[in-house]
């Protein structure tokens, strides 16, 4: 009997009650969220439980939602149960002013660089990470470029003024 999304959901609710929520199923993958200080407990439970066995971290990244006040940054974990071949998506939200989230490096060695990458681009401060420094960008960078407040093009450039392609005129770009 393979594992179904309903079984995962009821196991999580039995353990964590109303702390876990936002259950969704999109394209067959179960997705849910938990408070950020519970992230390690939830992942440890998913790892240890004899029926769930989510012991492979596929992916770790973040998403920036500037409009959601108090939970601007979502840290997204994709976990995989390789035995029953079930995936799930687990999210924790954190405010952009206090981006501290517990590090999963003790549970998954693979989280090490993925957390560094997430820190590098979104500024999520993984508490307990052994070496949280920038990985792909230069060390001297003092901002987190994947956040939505940084538009793609350098706003100080004045050599591009093509209004047809949404870049605006000189005045718009340089105006405060």
């Amino acid at each position: 009997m393979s594992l179904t999304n309903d079984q995962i959901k009821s196991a999580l609710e039995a353990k964590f009650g109303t702390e876990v929520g936002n259950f969704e199923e999109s394209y067959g993958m179960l997705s849910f969220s938990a408070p950020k200080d519970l992230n390690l407990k939830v992942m440890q439970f998913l790892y240890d439980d004899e029926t769930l066995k989510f012991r492979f971290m596929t992916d770790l990244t973040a998403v920036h939602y500037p409009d959601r006040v108090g939970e601007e940054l979502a840290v997204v974990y994709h976990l995989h149960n390789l035995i029953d071949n079930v995936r799930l998506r687990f999210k924790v939200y954190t405010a952009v002013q206090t981006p501290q989230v517990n590090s999963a490096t003790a549970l998954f060695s693979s989280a090490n660089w993925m957390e560094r990458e997430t820190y590098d681009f979104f500024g999520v401060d993984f508490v307990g990470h052994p070496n949280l420094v920038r990985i792909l960008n230069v060390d001297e960078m003092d901002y987190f470029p994947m956040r939505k407040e940084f538009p793609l093009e350098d706003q100080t450039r004045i050599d591009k003024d093509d209004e047809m392609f949404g870049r605006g005129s000189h005045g718009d770009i340089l105006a405060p």
Partner: protein
Amino acid sequence: MLEQPHINLPEGSIEKHTNTLNLGPTHPATHGVFQNILEMDGERIVSAVPTVGYIHRAFEKLAERRPYYQITPLTDRLNYCSAPLNNLGWHLTVEKLLGIEMPKRVDYLRVIVMELARIADHLICNSVIGVDSGAFTGFLYVMQYRELIYEIYEEVCGSRLTTNIGRIGGFERNFTPVAMQKIQRFLDEYPAVLKEFETLFTRNRIFMERTQNVGGISAERALNYGFTGPNLRAAGVDYDLRVAQPYSSYQDFEFSIPVGTTGDVYDRFLVRNAEMWESLSIIKQAMEKLKDLPSDVYHADVPAYYLPEKDDVYTKMEALIYHFKIVMGETDILPGEIYNAIEGANGELGYYLISDGGRSPYRLHFRRPCFIYYQAYPEIIKGSMLSDAILTMSSMNLIAGELDA
């Protein structure tokens, strides 16, 4: 052994027993921009600190400003040794988001292209293991067949290395008879060359002694480090997405998944070689299956998402409208959140896509297998010889483009 005479160091200096060696980022043996700062005790490696990011090009940020069809050329440049796999993985992700059903023939054509790309990637990796261990000949034997694969790409899509192959919804044009002939020629000629290549290496005493028990990793550590693809299978875990979560009609094909036992360089080499044979068999089966299908289907019937042919754009009103809507980003893309992965040449190549219904993705994240398993490199090479570290790096098939995105 003669004892080294003790050298009196100046007052206050620290006696250092190890040497620091800077390997890379442009070392000829690293095949790409990788830097490792090694702490060496004689010729043994005590510790390694890898630095990455030398060719970071901010693809995830760029993707947030581009319409969906313009993201395909970005994916080319991830694993540039097997660009069609990245392209088709992206198309499959968007098609899954939009719920597009593909005709069987397109699926099979895609399977052919993807398996050719896998062969091209594996043959480079394996022949370069030979080059790094001092056996240059094998590299030359197989290189001309990579050239033939590139000619097939050229025939199908017009370019060779960064292919930008296909469109969302199918291929931009049908496979020409020349392309089919070239695929057939590849199927006829490559097995003999691969056989010859294997005879050079597989039971070669020097090669075996050079690669066995070098750069090994246990299955448990490999899983914890997030290994996927041939490197994980060499450690003995039979996880292959083509079987675990079939996409593009892989369930219609008969093939086996080769696995190793020790996860060392030799096993990785054998797994990749065996996978090339499996890929050849898949292409053969696909060519057989194509014979029973109508030969003029090369895209799905989804005019709202599939870029119409140029001739139609100039002569037909509807095609012009759809062309305009797709290019200007006026098409309705469903809002949604999706993680879709394919079996890339190096492992699970995942696309995490969040669409808010706009013309570009709200967020696109590439799960690059190289980036995730390269972090195990310091652990693997700890205590080994410098020359073994080079072999380990080439056998892991690190591609700088995929690593840095």
